[in-house]
């Protein structure tokens, strides 16, 4: 079993060999975050999915598996000054 996701105050246990796509589905169900819609609607968010600091393109989410200790980021841009 993996503990690979920690949100602000929640944990989600993921099965071994879980893909990033599958992880996102589980996050969406558990946390009630409409992640899939966000990724579909926002090109810039879809371009900002990182696994351990490197970008993972949307089409590769299903084939990218997670390991213990991995860090996944889905980043929405914020305007700086």
């Amino acid at each position: 079993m993996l503990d690979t996701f920690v949100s602000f105050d929640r944990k989600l246990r993921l099965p071994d060999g879980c893909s990033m796509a599958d992880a996102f589905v589980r996050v969406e169900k558990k946390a009630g975050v409409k992640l899939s819609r966000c990724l579909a609607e926002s090109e810039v968010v879809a371009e900002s999915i990182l696994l351990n600091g490197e970008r993972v393109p949307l089409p590769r989410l299903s084939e990218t598996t997670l390991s213990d200790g991995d860090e996944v980021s889905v980043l929405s841009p914020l305007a700086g000054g």
Partner: protein
Amino acid sequence: MPPPEADQLNNPDNDNAPGTSPGEHATGGVAGKLLWVDLSEKRSWEEVVPPEVSRAFLGGYGLGAWALYRNLEPGTDPLSADNIFGIVAGTLTGYGTPFSGRSQIVSRSPLTGTWADSNSGGAIAGQLKRCGYDGLFVRGCAEQPTALIIRDGKVSFEDATDLWGLTTFEATDRLAERLDREKTGFSVIGPAGEKQSLIAAVINDRYHAWGRQGFGAILGSKKLKAIAVQGSGQVPLAHPAVFKALCEEINVPYREAHSLLVRFMAYVMKTNRFMGFLYRLITRLGLKLPVGGNQAPMIRTWRKMGTTSAVSVSTENGDAPVKNWTGAGSKDFPLSTKAYKVSDEAVQRYLDRSLSCGDCPLVCKGVVSVKSGAYKTDQVRRPDYETLCGFGANLLNDNLESVVMCHHICNNYGMDAVSAAATLGMVAELYEKGVLTIDDLDGVDLRWGNPEAIVEMTRKMATREGCGDLFADGSAKAAERLGTDAAREAAVHVHGQEPAYHDPKFSMSMGTSYVADPTPGRHTTGNASWNESFGMKLPLPDAKPATIEASEVGLRSYEGKGEAQRIWSNHHQALNGSGLCMFSLLTGGLPYSRLINAATGWDMTDDEFLEAGERIQNMRNAFNVREGIKPADFKAHPRMTGEVPLKHGPLAGVKVDQQKLKDMYFDAMDWDRESGRVSADRAKALGIDETLDGLVG
């Protein structure tokens, strides 16, 4: 071409002061006059602005570009007595219009040799309007350090020898001892400007900066330490009741950005620290606060934390370049271990109070104190996105207190934080490579992420002390003086000015601004990034549908980018002409043309608002064309385009064809790609063919 001298004011033979009445030339929203000052001759006079000019170019940069184009001789040395600078008010300045607490300055830049302008918070432009002027233009050079004091239009040239050498805080506070701070707009230079550092800034009302392009050096070259303006009049509004109702309508979502519970708690408790605690408590409990309107979350974020809110995310997603454009934030300065230390909540812990530019419902700035330790500071300007990225992530420095100190040095000594931090990035890189040694740096061990060295070198640059003199004019000049290939490679700039902390590989239209706007390297000149990366909609609901459609583009596709850039940059210039802050755009937009019409009595449409912006952009561009600057002179550094690719992070291997984007923008503007000249047909259609005096394609 000197302006007509309609009335000579500070002339021994003429005692007529303009007084507080707006004068015969004032119409709604427009004073219709400029105040001219000659520091060499210690005299002042007025110039009438024809009403059609105010309509065509609005105020702000537009009026400034019109005035300088006709009065500043091409080829003028920016640091000579012959150079002119202007402080200009927008059409909506001076009435308490939401987002209008801004002042603008125009001139020829000593850093880039190009058209120069800057838009800052601060009261001076509003005070000029209250004196009955749309702008103040200054030429000449004083014999000794001088403070220009203008009270309801009466001009005094005061000896400022006792102020020379003071920091901007000291000089402003000294002047405020005898000029009511609440009723005066102050613009001062610090030691960096006095020493004519090409990246010197002018500081307004202690905390706001005309940062880029070296305006501080221009004032320093004129021995002009300070300008202070007080006005007690008011230029009339054409339809005051309509105007007031529009402003009320604009302010509503800002009041509703907090739920009733939160507003009540803020009312009864000490606001800032308790709000932070309450916010964290509420989110831990999973409570949702009712909010109104879809811009409410953005308003709340910006009001609470300003642009500090974007630092860690932008470092992680690649928007913010790190390690002098050679690193990747997600690898070299990760959000979870480093970037969070110089971002949002981390910065909030030092907040003393919010800070407004004036006349603003958003209040996105702040004042902070570091109460103890090596970087102890008291009531200084909170560093925001550019500074946190520049002195923080860019230099791999996660010591926030040192970043606060660097920002304070820039503010207090009057130096552009963007250029200063970028120059330090170059120096750190050359030091790492051994091109610069510790002896070259006067013993300062400027390793990446060494806070003591970063602070010390910032101070040396601001005062031109020791090796700081080499770096005080920015990275391009430093590289030229060092004369090595390594230095030239490490100096990331566009025609002399360092770009801001937004990587065009993340949002390509930001790069178009850097290389195609008349002021190179600027990120606040309007570009299609607002839609490209943030999905913003053009806030002109009555513009032609085709215009609105063309303003929407994809992130990675090049399709339509030229026309989108044209629309967004024109909109931005019209914003400047109106005197409004660009953050009005990012929190939902305002009824821009309706506000202008209520102030002036015009019947400007949304399309005409954009057209005014296009005229302004053309005047800014024509200034450069007339100076002999070619479009090809603005080159993107290879690190900006990905020609030198990043190896890691979200932008690894990403390239941007900046030349293609520039060409597309030029084509959309009908500017010749080789000469930069606007076509004769487009100039005629915009009604600027005569103004441009033949400088058309």
